[in-house]
């Protein structure tokens, strides 16, 4: 990954967006022409409850500088309770990743509904800003290294 000068460096952020709310919210942000940084790479998932710790860590391992997981607001889940189960898992995961030394702000969670295009743009900017402040990810990134002599 080209680290370059910090002003040129643009973070890569993997966003897991739930099909029913946040993905539609991102769509609306585009349709409504709200500006947000081009750092977000979207992975559409059926529900935020589908996102497991494996997937978040896999994104980091593959070189993402940040991760965003976004789902429906509590009570609005199209599978009734997927995001509520997810909320418990993320709460534990977030604290745990911080405990082992992943900087707070690398892994982010949000609720964005299908009608909140502007909110999505703001979340995207906020997350990009958080990750930009942290700089390129170095921890848990699996790079191809040469064999130690």
């Amino acid at each position, binding site marked *: 990954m080209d680290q370059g000068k910090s002003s040129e460096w643009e973070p890569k952020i993997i966003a897991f967006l739930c099909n029913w709310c946040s993905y539609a919210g991102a769509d609306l942000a585009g349709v409504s022409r709200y500006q947000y940084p081009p750092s977000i790479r979207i992975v559409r998932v059926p529900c935020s409850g589908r996102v497991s710790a494996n997937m978040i860590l896999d994104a980091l391992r593959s070189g993402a500088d940040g991760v965003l997981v976004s789902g429906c607001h*509590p009570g609005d889940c199209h599978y009734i309770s997927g995001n509520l*189960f997810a909320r418990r898992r993320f709460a534990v995961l977030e604290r745990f990743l911080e*405990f082992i030394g*992943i*900087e707070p702000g690398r892994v982010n969670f949000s609720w964005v509904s299908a009608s909140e295009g502007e909110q999505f743009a703001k979340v995207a900017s906020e997350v990009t800003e958080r990750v930009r402040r942290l700089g390129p990810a170095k921890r848990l990134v699996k790079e191809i290294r040469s064999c130690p002599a």
Partner: protein
Amino acid sequence: MSSLNEKITKQIQATAKSMLDSGKVAAFLGYTKGTLPGTMQPFVARNAEEAQRLCWNSFCVLNLANYLPALLKSLEPPRKRGEPPPEGPLPRVGVLATGCWSRNMVVQIQENQIERDRVVIVGISSRGMVSRRKVEEFVGFQDITSIDEQENSLVVKGNGFEEVINRWDVIRDNCKTCIHPDPVIYDELIGGLSGDRKIPDRFRQVEEIESLTVDQRWEWFQKEISSCIRCYACRNACPLCYCPTCFVDDSRPQWVGKSIDEVDTSLFHILRAYHCAGRCTDCGSCESVCPMGIRMRLLTKKLQKDVFELYGFEPGLDLDTPLPLSTYKMDDPEDFIITDIKKGDQK
């Protein structure tokens, strides 16, 4: 051998013998002496004669709940895939259980890994188990030829040395901070109950790490797991790890590489611990079996602390409370989630 252990051993043997003789159980899961001093191995007694080999002391560090699902399955009459189980009750297993083991059995019952009416639980209040590694450290890793356990001390002998160690000095860390030494569920009891212990700072080890900066924590984590050889002994000794295919063995997608690359090792330890969140009873098996002395228990202890703080839950204390990550409440804490950014709110 201390008279207390001798008494318990006799009682275990008698209980197992009577259960096996009466046909109440088809097998009795306990411990017998290991091949090295200071080791004990899990042992399945299938008749009264074998029951005489059962034994008890302070080195019973493995969690017997780990062997229950497979043992119960092995006792069922063979049947084809999809065939319904035979009618009538299936053979039962008697098993020893201290506080943490019985709590793991509760978790296994909640997760449908074992059936309550197929296990006869013989409860023993735990005095804490001894860490063999701590004993070895105490004698400077010299070869130990015999360890004789007294009431509150261990007499360790080797080639040219003899040491008397205070038992509590070499107790495992998890046993030192254990507040539930008594079995939670049991059908029979050996010895008395000792009641819950009060330990105000049982998360002290975790809090020490929490007080470090994020960079120092990362350094600590990398240092702690740097010696890992990925033998997966911690996974295999864990009564929570019963998935037919573990995430480390998945190849499509491959979540964790198979090398001892530090990222792969980190991911393995993160995910292994995370899978135990809200289920781990801090039995210490993982740490006891680690050949490299990695303290991976600190990771699960942290998760235990968080689950307790967030949801007020301790695993395995009763059969009726659902496990925290398999349930939810509408008002669960969500202060970590970006919900509403108002204008000018962005930092």
